[in-house]
């Protein structure tokens, strides 16, 4: 007990002494593990290369400037593809995520013992696999190109959207739903009047946020052949065309900045 009495003086501490000692003990173990891992990594590193790295970095930076601006003409279409992959992938994900979210939320799930675990499993499996890995598999399944990218982004985003959406559904005010129910409304009406208006802001926020993340993710999908600007990045790196690489990095930065600005504006307008 944090409160104790000794010689008529009531003292109070956040934790009792055994609790406090246990905490220090865990800290000690944590630090020991950290130092051990540090040594392991250090042994496997060739420090000569690391010492050389600043010079290498300066060298690479020198070879990157000036960016090859005339290469831009070949980048417009890949940038457009990248944005399309992100947008279509997000739309696909949302379409699938909505029913899954309603099945996963405690207060709307048709069955807590059967349907809910399945929905949660879909969410976890979609979230646990990175979109790059999805893309890698899909390129072998349906061939390289934008379509594989769209599906990869979609599959990866289902879990994210469904998870945030079902959490929003679980947090709604039950009184409003009860009031709609009390008017004699049907189940579908209860959904459209009692629940949907309450989760609309969360829904819009989640969609735009995910779209914003997907723009960034789709820029690398080309590395495994799933379309978009990553394809150009890959070929430029492998041909050591560093001035092209720097231009592509600038273009990616610009796209991400613009997408963040757009998503901030949209979220601000909705919420």
């Amino acid at each position, binding site marked *: 007990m944090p409160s104790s009495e000794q010689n008529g003086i009531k003292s109070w501490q956040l934790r009792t002494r055994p609790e406090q000692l246990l905490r220090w003990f865990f800290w000690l173990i944590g630090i020991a593990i950290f130092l051990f891992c540090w040594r392991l990594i250090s042994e496997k590193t060739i420090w000569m290369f690391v010492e050389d790295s600043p010079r290498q970095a300066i060298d690479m930076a020198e070879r990157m400037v000036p960016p090859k601006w005339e290469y831009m003409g070949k980048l417009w279409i890949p940038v457009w593809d990248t944005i399309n992959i992100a947008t279509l992938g997000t739309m696909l994900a949302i379409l699938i995520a909505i029913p899954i979210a309603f099945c996963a939320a405690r207060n709307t799930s048709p069955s807590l013992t059967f349907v809910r675990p399945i929905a949660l499993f879909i969410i976890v499996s979609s979230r646990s696999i990175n979109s790059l890995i999805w893309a890698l598999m899909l390129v072998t399944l349906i061939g390289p190109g934008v379509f594989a990218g769209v599906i990869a982004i979609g599959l990866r985003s289902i879990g994210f959207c469904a998870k945030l959406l079902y959490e929003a559904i679980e947090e709604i*005010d039950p*009184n*409003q739903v*009860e*009031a*709609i*129910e*009390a*008017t*004699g*409304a*049907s189940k*579908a*009406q209860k959904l*459209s*009047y*009692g629940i949907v*208006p*309450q989760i*609309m*802001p969360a829904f819009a926020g989640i969609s735009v946020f995910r779209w914003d993340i997907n723009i960034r993710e789709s820029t690398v999908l080309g590395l495994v052949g799933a379309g978009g600007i990553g394809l150009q990045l890959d070929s430029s790196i492998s041909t050591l065309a560093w001035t092209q690489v720097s231009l592509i990095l600038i273009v990616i930065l610009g796209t991400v900045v613009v997408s963040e600005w757009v998503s901030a504006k949209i979220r601000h307008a909705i919420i």
Partner: protein
Amino acid sequence: MLRIDKLVKQYKTGDIALKGVSLEIPKGQVLALIGPSGAGKSTVIRCVNRLVEPTEGKIWLNDLELVSLSSAALRRARRRMGMIFQEYALVERLSVMENVLSGRLGYVGFWRSFFRKYPQNDINEAYRLLERVELDHMADKRADELSGGQRQRIGICRALIQNPDLLLVDEPTASLDPKTSRQIMRLICDLCQERQLAAIINIHDVHLAQMFAKRIVGLQEGKIVYDGPPDSLTPDVLTQIYGEEDWEATIEEVEDEEEIEIAMETAGASS
């Protein structure tokens, strides 16, 4: 009109909320249900429209037995019972008009309600009701822009547009200031008289109950311990309902305030 016969409710936790409550309410009667928190006031009215499923007992609305109804028949029966809530339970993100019209959900099909294509008669009735509660200029505001008293008046409109036979009113004034509380209680009672509606009003403010209701029922630990007119609520009776306390002040205060109110109203009328 409404007849409750030996109503018993036992919650899953094992708590017995109602221990055989029997009540009969004739057409047009306003009944105040008083009692301490946890006495089962809310459970009584929620059993009537089956937002809470009764464990035992029967409830008749006119000739219709409510406890045994199937879900489709229950929806039809709920249309005849308007409910008014403590925290208003308006759908916050919908407009005032949508909230009022949601009282018609039991009568309108899903797609009509989804596209907000309500019959002209319903819209006319909504405007009539909003005019009656002096909020017709607020029809296009969003519900969360309104003050507490205004929201409760919208809640009343939503219940009345159902064209009910019975009003179930759950602590209508608990979130309101004293003056607004009186206005809301007066409005509910006036409307019940205009439309010859029966009403059960849960209220913990003994004072307001005495001022507005013709009949008072005291509930204590799931049993009815008092059923009679407001002026025979003696300190003994209140002690029986709520427990030992000095009740003289409460009762005297009511008489004083009523006099002041009458005086003020006559002064207001003459000026």
